[in-house]
């Protein structure tokens, strides 16, 4: 049975990717749009760099490294988590009925319903920025560090996915999740594209403990820049995927809880 589940999941993903090719115009316009949005972020960093010596102790190249690393997990979020935007539409139109009729867990059907290849544009751009700034900073990489950071990247994506899933699952009760979605987007951008040290202590605390946004890019990159070889660094790198898995587990539980509510309220 498990191999059937895996096979079906993969097939679902393949189909959702195929769907995208029906809309080539969208891909092309995003090919223009996304670099421009990134450009405005990078432009800000550049403006800061040419007129101020550092921002909260972070130089331009360090800021760019942070930006790039954050953008990588943002891109992966776009690939795997885009369907969260319309969660409230799915609830209102009763689309979950279809998923409830199939012999597959609803969360899997939901997760595979919209694999968004366009997110890979973000990933490539993020990787480019990361590579360029890491070269300028003359960071030394070894296989172990790369593997560790890939794991951290995965964890960062899990944290993002989980937070969005929790926030959008409120649509099961309220049937309106878009405002929360955009609020989460704003918070996430501000917490992952810039060093958290610019914010007052109490905000930093909230963003590390309550909503672990600090673990997405700020803390790992801070360790990367300071002393990537130490035990502390390793701990921080591993903390992100661990937190990611825990919060993803909680998010799925919450989603299923919301689904029960959907089942009792009807559509």
């Amino acid at each position: 049975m498990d191999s059937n589940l895996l096979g079906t999941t993969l097939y679902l993903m393949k189909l959702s990717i195929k769907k995208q090719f029906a809309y080539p115009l969208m891909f092309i316009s995003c090919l223009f749009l996304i670099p421009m949005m990134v450009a405005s972020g990078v432009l800000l960093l550049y403006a800061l760099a040419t007129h101020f010596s550092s921002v909260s102790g972070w130089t331009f190249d360090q800021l760019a490294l942070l930006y790039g690393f954050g953008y990588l997990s943002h891109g992966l979020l776009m690939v795997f988590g885009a369907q969260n935007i319309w969660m409230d539409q799915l609830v209102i139109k009763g689309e979950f009925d279809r998923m409830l009729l199939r012999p597959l867990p609803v969360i899997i059907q939901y997760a595979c319903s919209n694999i968004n290849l366009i997110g890979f544009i973000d990933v490539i751009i993020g990787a480019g920025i990361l590579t360029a700034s890491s070269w300028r900073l003359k960071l030394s990489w070894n296989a172990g560090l790369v593997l560790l950071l890939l794991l951290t990247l995965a964890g960062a994506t899990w944290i993002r996915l989980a937070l969005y899933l929790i926030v959008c699952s409120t649509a099961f009760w309220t049937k309106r999740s878009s405002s929360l979605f955009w609020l989460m987007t704003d918070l996430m951008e501000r917490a992952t594209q810039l060093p958290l040290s610019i914010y007052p202590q109490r905000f930093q605390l909230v963003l590390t403990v309550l909503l672990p946004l600090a673990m997405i890019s700020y803390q790992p990159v801070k360790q990367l820049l300071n002393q990537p070889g130490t035990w502390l660094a390793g701990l921080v790198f591993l903390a992100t995927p661990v937190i990611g898995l825990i919060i993803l587990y909680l998010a799925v539980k919450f989603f299923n809880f919301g689904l029960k509510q959907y089942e009792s309220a009807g559509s």
Partner: protein
Amino acid sequence: MCCCPKAWKRFPDPVKMPACSTAGSAYLHLVKAQLLTALTYKTDFILAILGNVAVMLASIYLWQAAYRSQLLTTGVDLDSMITYVVMVALMNACYSGTIEFTLQHRITQGDVVIDLIRPIHLLGSYLAVDLGLTVSAFLSRVLPMLAVALIFFPFKPPASLIHGGLFLASALMGYLILWLCAALIALICLWHIQLGHLGAVKDGFILLLSGRIVPAWLMPDFLRPIMDLLPFQHIYQTPLSFYIGQINLAQASLILARQALWTLALLALVQWVWFSGKKQLLALGG
């Protein structure tokens, strides 16, 4: 079908057109309708304000952190920068427009033919709707944001009374320029309905070149001429330059005239596109 979430943020619910007959009451009705719709979704409202405040705070903290380090080149002092950033956030909170989505939506649904028969000027009615949204956003979002800015941060008033007046005039024209650009994009779908994401591309340009993220005096040199060539800088940069007193009164009239010229040019362009598109639409039978 989505791909870029940011592109979709600009689209609120489509506007329902009322069945009124006299022009004046129709416009007023539209403005009122927008106010009421906005007020009924209490939670959405609070969340949107929270989002606006969070974004504003993030900008303020960023520049505060930047100014703490040694300046390499002076542009403007910290308090003026904070004022600039707060004003950008306030203006951004009000400048919500539905014209693009509404027009696209109604064209693909075929409803626009009904609108063409009405006695009131269609674009004017859409402007009234968006003005209503802006007024309601001003009343509901700007005031709390302004309160936060005034209480916790060194937010400055306009450089002088005259500068304040110039700012208002310039901001009004800037709003029209933004609206006309949106209307232009929307009208292009009278001919090519599938170019839905052109609006998002336009937004990308505005983000880069209007002074919203990076003010003109901090822009790299190679981008300055491009900024001057396009009308987008008149949306945020020009009015705010008046506000913080960067423009002296001697240059003021020249700059205002340039902004006015852009506004009129865009107005003419939009009218032309509208009328030729309308002819085509009526010829095709909707």
